């Protein structure tokens, strides 16, 4: 399996099923517990959550054999709805492994919604996971996948919907650029200055395959931005040769006078053999001399133009979707990487062993060097060593358990622990400790059938 995640989704939505079919599968909030228990009782389902909204009914599950779990679930759903399994199958879609993660991320980001960008769906996805936690059908796999979904959903909202102004400027710029260029693969974007908005637009173009070159009066700042976006730098003094190579220029310097003069651009255009050039000027005061727009094959958009276009697109939310899709792709890739790197459970065990062993060894040495000690004193010595070790272990353990559930930070936390304590932890396919479904004392909550929720995961 490509991602090695034993995760799957089976469901139907406004895209695949008419309302009367969706109604049959819809569930009242007070039935959730019973329904989830029904799902969890199916073999080989290990973890399960139900997302039920007016536009979709989806079952997310973790199972060692996702395909078998989907088949069992399909039968179960048909029985519950009182319809023929084959009839229902026409409306159902199933995704496994990475594809299921990708689907969940898109759903949570509202990219799969009837009205793209509608804000309710994230709350509904959260509720679905909370319900699963409450009814003890969630474990480590669901915790990891859902927290990844919350993360991307927040990011999409933050960067494409909520803070509409700066970002829609960037998305309008990109839309404008799309009317000039047939895609950005292989195009060169020159970022002049290191403003935040330029940063966003450049990053987005980079995600679409463009190469980014950053130039700035202060080299260190240019390097910083280039490193963040994934581009390289060019000396500010040599703007001319940077212009010759560029297809799209994003200017956002704090200069008082235009940096990109008509003469400079005209000279560059000669060298560029008249290739189309798009200058996005988001600086105030402007960086591009307005007369430059009169040059043939040169297009200029300043902040006012972009703002006006952004306002015109207020209800055209679709324009954000492309960028959001790219973000989802990115997050799925990051998630996978982090997921593979997660070895929370074994790391905690190894850490505990290492610290306790060290403490006991030291206690033994101390006892050996003090021959006059009686049994009671010796026992007290060992107990003291143990107690200190356990006290010291408590916080890192809790941090690992909590942080381990985060698909991105988890990996770095685990790696850090392993490095700091020189722990030798064998590779594993999936997470070992349920991050969300643990009780306060750190014990794994038992699942309904009595087996600890964490043990069934990731095999």
């Amino acid at each position, binding site marked *: 399996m490509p991602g090695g995640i034993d995760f799957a989704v089976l469901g139907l939505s406004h895209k695949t099923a008419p309302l009367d079919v969706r109604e049959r599968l819809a569930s009242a909030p007070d039935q959730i517990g019973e329904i989830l228990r029904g799902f969890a009782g199916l073999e080989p389902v290990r973890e399960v959550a139900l997302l039920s909204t007016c536009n979709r009914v989806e079952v997310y599950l973790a199972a060692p054999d996702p395909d078998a779990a989907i088949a069992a679930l399909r039968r179960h759903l048909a029985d519950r709805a009182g319809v023929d399994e084959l009839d229902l199958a026409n409306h159902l879609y199933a995704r496994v492994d990475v594809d299921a993660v990708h689907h969940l991320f898109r759903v949570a980001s509202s990219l799969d919604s009837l009205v793209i960008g509608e804000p309710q769906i994230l709350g509904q996805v959260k509720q679905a996971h909370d319900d699963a936690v409450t009814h003890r059908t969630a474990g480590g796999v669901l915790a990891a996948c859902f927290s990844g979904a919350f993360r991307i959903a927040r990011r999409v909202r933050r960067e494409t919907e909520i803070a509409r102004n700066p970002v829609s400027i960037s998305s309008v710029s990109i839309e404008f650029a799309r*009317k*000039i260029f047939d895609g950005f693969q292989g195009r060169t974007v020159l970022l002049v200055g290191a403003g935040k908005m330029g940063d966003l637009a450049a990053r987005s173009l980079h995600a679409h395959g463009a190469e980014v070159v950053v130039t700035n009066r202060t080299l260190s700042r240019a390097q910083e931005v280039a490193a963040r976006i994934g581009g390289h730098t060019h000396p500010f003094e040599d703007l001319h040769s940077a212009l010759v190579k560029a297809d799209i220029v994003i200017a956002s310097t704090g200069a008082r006078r235009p940096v990109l003069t008509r003469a400079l651009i005209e000279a560059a255009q000669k060298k560029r053999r008249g290739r189309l050039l798009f200058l996005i000027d988001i600086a105030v005061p402007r960086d591009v001399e307005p007369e430059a727009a009169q040059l043939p094959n040169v297009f200029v958009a300043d902040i006012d133009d972009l703002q006006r276009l952004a306002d015109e697109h207020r209800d055209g939310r679709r324009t954000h979707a492309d960028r959001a899709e790219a973000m989802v792709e990115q997050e799925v890739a990051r998630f996978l990487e982090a997921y593979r790197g997660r070895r929370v459970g074994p790391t905690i065990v190894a850490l505990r062993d290492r610290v306790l062993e060290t403490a006991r060894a030291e206690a033994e040495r101390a006892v050996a060097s003090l021959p006059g000690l009686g049994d009671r004193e010796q026992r007290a010595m060992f107990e003291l060593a143990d107690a200190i070790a356990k006290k010291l272990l408590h916080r890192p353990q809790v941090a690992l358990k909590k942080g381990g559930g985060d698909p991105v930070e988890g990996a770095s936390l685990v790696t850090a622990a392993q490095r700091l304590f020189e722990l030798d932890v064998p590779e594993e396919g999936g997470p070992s400790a349920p991050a969300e479904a643990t009780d306060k004392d750190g014990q794994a909550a038992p699942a309904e059938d009595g087996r600890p929720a964490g043990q069934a995961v990731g095999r």
Partner: protein
Amino acid sequence: MATLTAVQILAYALASALFLGHLLTTRPGATRIARGVLLIAFTLQLVDIGIRCVGGENPVSSTREAVGFVGFLIAGGFLLAGLRYRLSAAGAFAVPASLTLLVLARVVPAEPGAPRMGALGMTHVFLATLGVAVFAFAAVLAVLYLREETRLKKKRFNRMAADETPLATLDGLGLRCVSVGFPVFTLALVTGAVWIARLGGLAASEARRPEYLMAVAAWLAFGGLLLARVGAGWRGHRAAWLTLGGFAGLFTVLLLYVLRSLS
């Protein structure tokens, strides 16, 4: 036969109206109907051409047939390009052009006394026809380019136009058309010259016929355009204008031919 012609013209007229309507109102879905109607018109013309071929009147056997055939090729090229590119706006220019050429071909009376052209003559007419059709398509792309360019320069883009073809694609396609059309048209000129020479050459007065001069001027314009594109990096704006200039010359040639056969 007359019914088939009438239905063809009607279908092309309807498709033209639909494409023009789409351009003005930009209602989504309108293009699909327009394309459907155009496909019907195109098929009807194909059948018509087939019937005429059987009757011994192939598309390159006379000026009037060739003129209709240019329109047929333009419509076909547009339908074909539509499979890969979003060019619905091009329909508003390409389809009326096909309609005009078809009407022209049908109003021109048959030339009962026209001499048999022979293989060389037909090759010439075929190549010229193909060349003109390809250049006509390049001209349509140039019009689209200039229209979209003006809009972008004024930062005015309608919301619907989200599915329009980007400038770079229009420019690139235009270049491709010209680089295909130019060798074809060159061969057409050469075969034409050889053909005339075989017929016994031209009288001095005939050599200065405006259509010959115009054809050579158009050929020079397109040749110059190719050179300028490759050599001096002429793209976009200027290339579009030069394409239109070259095509205007060709169109005049076509018109002169038609007028001459009418007179």
